[in-house]
């Protein structure tokens, strides 16, 4: 009977899918029972008094009860004790979520780093190795060269529900989220994990979680961020480790050879062309014209190097280790490229004029 009645009530909390859920929910239920107790006490007494002491005649005389010290102490002290428990439990669980360093340290530091980037109006998720999954539109357009695996079934399901973003994490592994925003304030929330935090431009918000149950959950934006605020909603897939490995491998598939040089050219245009020309004219840094294969390239310190794969690789990853003559004052920023991007860019540097993979056209 009681169970049937309870089953008819709407669900009180989302599914429990992270290690935080249990602590938070037990505090939640403690508060709920305190609320029910006081609500029944107050409204029960009120109803009882209203019925019992309803005015029967106009000249009733009431007793002069101005106060009762004992009662007043009881009803001040008991609530104080109860709220102190709420305060303490709430603080401990909150501090845990906000502070990954202490907790991840206990696990020997084994964890996955994900980067969450809120923007109007979707979330970009960047996985280890620098693979970014944008919203569904950019999945097709902006990232075509980079991203060959496509969660087709999720996208079509998501479209119906205005889902604009996807995220995949393994079960039972701590995940550290480093979050920022491109524009206004957003707030990243995963109800099933009991986590949430605002993200702000030029700031890094850190939270973490450890998922405990495979499944499909939602994450939402909880801070009003403009006209499509209601569409900043995403699907979070919690999967077993082997499926996560498969997912990462899918992200990691190299581009087909005929697209690699073009991807390198795009990287050049985006990140390098401001300082390195292709026509031999010096900009902030040396031109790339005829650079690859050059013997006896002169350095600032008077030494010479041969421009080969190793030298180029070093110059990209640790740009200021060896500086070319004439460019001693220039400081090149360190480039954050993954191995594949590096190889695409190197293909372009080796042959900036044309794609070596294009076959001569037969007419």
């Amino acid at each position: 009977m009681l169970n049937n009645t309870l089953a008819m009530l709407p669900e009180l909390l989302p599914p429990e899918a992270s290690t935080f859920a249990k602590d938070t929910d037990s505090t939640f239920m403690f508060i709920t029972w305190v609320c029910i107790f006081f609500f029944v006490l107050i409204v029960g007494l009120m109803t009882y008094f209203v019925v019992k002491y309803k005015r029967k005649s106009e000249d009733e005389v009431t007793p002069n009860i101005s106060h009762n010290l004992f009662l007043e102490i009881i009803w001040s002290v008991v609530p104080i004790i109860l709220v102190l428990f709420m305060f303490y439990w709430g603080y401990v669980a909150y501090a845990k979520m906000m502070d990954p360093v202490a907790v991840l340290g206990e696990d020997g530091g084994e964890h996955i780093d994900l980067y969450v980037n809120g923007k109007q109006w979707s979330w970009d998720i960047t996985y280890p190795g620098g693979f970014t999954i944008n919203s569904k539109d950019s999945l097709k357009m902006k990232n075509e060269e980079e991203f060959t695996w496509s969660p087709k079934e999720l996208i079509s399901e998501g479209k119906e529900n205005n889902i604009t973003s996807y995220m995949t994490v393994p079960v039972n592994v701590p995940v550290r989220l480093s979050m920022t925003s491109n524009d206004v304030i957003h707030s990243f929330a995963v109800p099933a994990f009991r986590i949430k935090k605002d993200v702000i431009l030029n700031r890094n918000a850190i939270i973490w979680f450890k998922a405990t149950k495979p499944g499909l959950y939602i994450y939402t934006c909880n801070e009003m961020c403009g006209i499509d605020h209601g569409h900043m909603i995403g699907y979070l897939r919690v999967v077993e480790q082997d499926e996560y490995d498969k997912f990462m491998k899918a992200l990691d598939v190299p581009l087909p050879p005929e697209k690699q040089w073009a991807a390198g050219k795009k990287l050049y245009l985006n990140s390098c062309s401001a300082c390195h020309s292709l026509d031999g004219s010096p900009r902030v840094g040396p031109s790339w014209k005829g650079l690859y294969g050059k013997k006896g390239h002169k350095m600032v310190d008077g030494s010479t190097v041969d421009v080969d794969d190793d030298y180029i690789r070093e110059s990209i990853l640790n740009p200021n280790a060896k500086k070319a003559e004439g460019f001693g004052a220039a400081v090149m920023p360190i480039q954050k490229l993954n191995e594949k991007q590096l190889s695409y860019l190197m293909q372009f540097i080796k042959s900036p004029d044309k794609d070596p993979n294009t076959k001569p056209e037969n007419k």
Partner: protein
Amino acid sequence: MSEAGTNYINHEKGIMSWLTTVDHKRIGLMYLWSAVAALAAGGFFALMIRFQLMSPENDLISKQTYNQAFTLHGVIMVFLFIIPSIPAALGNFVLPIQVGAKDVAFPRMNLASYYIYVVGSIMALAAIALPYFIEGWKPLDAGWTFYAPYSKQTAGPVILMTMAAFVLGFSSIFTGLNFIVTIHKLRVKGMGWYKMPLMLWALYATSILQVLATPVIGITLLLLAMERVLDIGIFDPAKGGDPVLFQHFFWFYSHPAVYIMILPGMGVISELISTFCKKVIFGYNAIANSSIAIAVISFFVWGHHMFLSQQTTFSSMVFSFLTFGVAIPSAIKIFNWVATLYRGSIDLKTPMCYALSFLFLFTIGGLTGLYLGTLSTDIILHDTYFVVAHFHYVMFGGTVIAFFGGLHFWWPKMYGVMYNEFWGRLACGIIFIGFNMTFFSQFFLGSTGMPRRYHSYAGDAHVAETWKSMSGLSTMGAVILGCGIAIMFINLLISLKTGKKAPRNPWGATTLEWETQSPPVHENFEEEPKFTREPYSY
């Protein structure tokens, strides 16, 4: 009228006599009907929101219109309705009579406060209407909180609306100053501080908050306007500004503002419960002192709006602790009111129905605050419908219900007529049912994670059914609630034509306003009032 031929309503005639009056009672009435008009406008936007959210993928109104609706609902209800409702409308009418004075300390400043309110309201209306007439203007959509940097980026008339709130703030400060001086200097001989009606304690605590906190929102909104116009880079992170700083400034006012809204309601309830129990109020000192305690502590809890805003864990801990500190005095008040009922002579007249309604709803509102003050559970509920439900239980179930109760309590004094009790109680019952349907359902929406300010809300398999059914229920409740309020006002308006003439003291109350005739004469008392008995001595 056998007692006297004239009263404050008929002693001068014509529209000019109202527009130039310095009589606190007339100013109170003008505030009253302005606030009621604002309630109607805010209610219209509320229904717009509810109809849009009736079903998950509804397209009744566009996203732009929806964002505008919740922004205007918030701005109108907070700045134009709730803040002036009890202090400036009921308080203006009642406070000087309760202290036994002819008027407030600075009557002309009182009229100035009303005109400032009118100017602020016109600016707010302009900000609402102009986007429809001026090309290139977009409707306001930043939410009533105007969080930077979105409020900088949006194309809506943010500057006009924030300047409206800036101007409205001065009206609030003027009223607060007036009340503080009036209570200090104009109390009738013999009325010591702890012999004041509790309504006065509540209005006094409110006034202190108004005078001290309102300038902060003024400065904040001014800085926001400068950010938009001059790009000074104080709140915009792209310019090196700090958007969290805006939130600190904003809530430094807006949290105390919550108590500007609820404290006067608590004052009204103390009067109602004692009067309709015909019994001395239980724990007078505790209620009076807790009003002041709430006013003081409320200045130190603003950070609980920002637990997830990237403030430090240490600040969150401190603010959570202090927040529980403000919960205790509110709980004490509730216990005192319930204890007053014990062995009383309880008369279920319309105002008392509202008072009991208040006890029921405010208890829920207060208790659900515990979830939000607790740090870990706030993580689930922050910026969800749970928060919406909680503050509507406090602001509507608390303040607005107390306002309705007070309106029915002092109506015979204001207009000298009695309204129909049957329709009065019926409206109260309909409002009670409609209110609970509208907002209790939203607790479930919030606890399952439905974010605020979403135009559509499909959710996932776990929550879709809950979100759909509870949102539908909430919309039905809102319609019932709207009907209840309409019946209430119709009943009051009809009484102006057909109501029986009210005696001096229809409820058998003990405070000074019931010693004068209904409605009172121009300067309140026919003869110098004497403080012959303490309030609540039956």
